[in-house]
């Protein structure tokens, strides 16, 4: 306990160094900005800024990038509340009640509750990481390849919970993502797999063009389908402070949301989005008056907003302890670490303590900065939201193209951007969720490596996954989650058949 506090203090000293404070602020500002702007998210932004971090020391780079991720969770709520558009994937749920509150003239309290819930969650999550990550890293030393594989499988299954389409199409997306991750050079044998002889594909399909194409480009085309209808809640946002009743109603949701977010962020596949959805559902189910949800219930803002911030921060834990990226944004952070010669894994805490504790301590500072940035600067964000889309989306395309090209100076990556933009649009039209695909793509190479190693160690015996206790436990969890998703639809189907 004492040495955790000592380490945390050491980290605070690192995070409070002048340049690190600057990078933290830059990250928080950029994060809020992209969180506010719909269509541009942390994945694209971190991808674009990754090359720049080459020049920075590793701690500063991660501090800034982390600031972007959890900063975006703050900013996303602004757009959700004022415009009924999710600025960020994780703020989809905040639209439901946040916008309704704004329509009833309670935009100020909604924004304040969102910011304060996020602050509470951010601080709690920082402490959670500080106290739980070191023991988790020790636990991780007991993890063998079979456990890693099962854990990642659990994460993929958890991602299905997020997917709005049917279970089958989500599974199909996961399979597609795993398949795409196999294109390229096989690490073990050096054999070139499924590249059509296209040389740039020897290193595999680029993660950034894939992600940007499927999400950013497809989204732009979708938005161009019809003329823009942005109904920004007008008028002065006066009376920023929530009422005492608001505070009282929010305490429970904030505590629950923070807990849910902190736990779900640990799962591979977890993070801000899963946490916010889960917290909202739980809150609605626990409420004495569930019909208030969707009509401007302050609980419907407090819960998801605290959950998404907690989830965003704790999703660093699998990276910093197990070396597994929990979601695409964290995968990019892993890339940033490797660029700086830091191998993600259980040894980060011991070999690079300044990195570990510096980043965690910076989250505390970052959250405080963000509350200061968000509430007074609301007017600025609102003005930004009024920029017509016809000016905004070409700029977005420019940044995407530059970001993609600058990664390896490869024109082919930009071509991939076109291809996946079209594919992403098709998915949108066919009601397929691209998020599980992206996650499977990220986890694919790791899963393959661990599967091979596990089978090697087990001399080809697949029961190793269920005979080893930790692995078995994880697989049972995955099966339970699968059942939760499948069962309601089975009973629904039965009803329609017997009618």
């Amino acid at each position, binding site marked *: 306990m004492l040495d955790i506090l000592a380490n945390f203090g050491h980290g605070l000293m690192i995070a409070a160094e002048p340049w690190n404070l600057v990078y933290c602020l830059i990250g928080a500002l950029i994060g809020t900005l992209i969180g506010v702007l719909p269509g541009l998210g942390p994945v694209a932004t971190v991808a674009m800024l990754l*090359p*720049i971090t080459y*020049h920075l020391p590793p701690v500063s780079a991660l501090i800034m990038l982390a600031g972007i991720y959890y900063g975006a969770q703050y900013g996303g709520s602004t757009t959700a509340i004022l415009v009924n558009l999710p600025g960020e994937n994780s703020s989809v749920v905040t639209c439901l009640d946040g916008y309704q509150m704004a329509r009833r003239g309670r935009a100020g309290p909604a924004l304040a509750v969102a910011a304060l819930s996020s602050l509470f969650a951010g601080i709690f999550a920082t402490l959670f990481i500080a106290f739980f990550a070191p023991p988790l890293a020790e636990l991780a030393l007991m993890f063998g390849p079979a456990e890693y594989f099962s854990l990642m499988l659990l994460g993929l299954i958890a991602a299905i919970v997020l997917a709005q389409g*049917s279970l*089958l*199409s989500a599974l*199909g997306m996961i*399979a*597609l993502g*795993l*398949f795409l991750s*196999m294109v390229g050079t*096989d690490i*073990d*044998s050096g*054999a070139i*797999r*499924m590249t*059509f002889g296209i040389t740039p594909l020897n290193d595999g399909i680029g993660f950034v063009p894939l992600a940007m194409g499927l999400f950013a*480009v497809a989204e*732009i*085309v*979708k938005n*161009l*389908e019809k*003329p823009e209808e942005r109904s920004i809640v007008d008028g002065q946002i006066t009376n920023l402070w929530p009422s005492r009743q608001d505070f009282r109603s929010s305490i429970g949701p904030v505590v629950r949301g923070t807990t849910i977010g902190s736990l779900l962020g640990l799962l591979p596949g977890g993070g801000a989005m899963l946490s916010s959805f889960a917290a909202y559902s739980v809150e609605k189910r626990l409420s004495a008056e569930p019909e208030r949800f969707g009509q401007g219930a302050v609980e419907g803002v407090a819960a998801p907003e605290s959950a998404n911030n907690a989830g965003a921060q704790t999703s660093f834990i699998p990276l910093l302890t197990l070396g597994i990226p929990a979601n695409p944004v964290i995968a990019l952070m892993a890339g940033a670490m490797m660029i700086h010669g830091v191998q993600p894994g259980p040894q980060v805490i011991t070999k690079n303590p300044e990195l570990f504790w510096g980043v965690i301590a910076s989250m505390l500072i970052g959250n405080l900065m963000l509350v200061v940035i968000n509430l007074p600067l609301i007017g600025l964000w609102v003005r930004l939201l009024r920029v017509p*889309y*016809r*000016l905004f*989306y*070409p*700029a977005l*395309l*420019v940044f*995407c*193209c*530059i970001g993609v*090209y*600058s990664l390896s*100076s490869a024109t082919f990556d*930009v*071509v991939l*951007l*076109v291809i996946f*933009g*079209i594919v992403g*649009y*098709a998915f949108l*039209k*066919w*009601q397929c969720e691209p998020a599980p695909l992206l996650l499977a793509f990220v986890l694919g190479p790791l899963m*393959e490596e661990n*599967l*091979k190693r596990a*089978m*090697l160690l*087990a*001399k*080809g015996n*697949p029961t190793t996954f269920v005979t080893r206790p930790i692995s078995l436990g994880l697989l049972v969890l995955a099966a339970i989650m699968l059942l939760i998703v499948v069962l309601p639809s089975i009973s629904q189907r039965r009803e329609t058949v017997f009618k």
Partner: protein
Amino acid sequence: MMRRSPTFNDLATGLLLIAVAALGFWLAMDLRIGTAQRMGPGYLPRAMCAVLGGLGALIVVRSFIVSGAPREPWAWMPLALVSASIAAFALGIEKVGLFVSIVALVVVASLAAPDKRAGEVAILSVGLAAFSSFVFVKMLGLPIPLWPAASLLGLS
């Protein structure tokens, strides 16, 4: 079960997955499979293609049984224009440099906006090109060719 037209979205998705699975299997045919204990490069690709194809088939079957969301029409012009704009950037970036490529990108992409104005597009394209050149190349030092002359000389 009544015969009715299948849910288009599911049908399309399922067929796409089957097509990709078939293509992948064909591409991976020459790869060594190995054993379960020592998996060769072809083991998991083939296994994945089987899973992918199986899921695709299930989704196709499902499209005939369960009705889903109605088919949405595609916005072909915006799709084509946005794709063309990115392609223009790809074509131009190493030949004529960043500045011109951005202008081309913005001009082509702006054609897809229903409320575009010529003057605005001109200012936006040049403005973005100038801004990006300054921030990304001059300030951040990213290795992107800025002008035709620079790229022809092989300098970054």
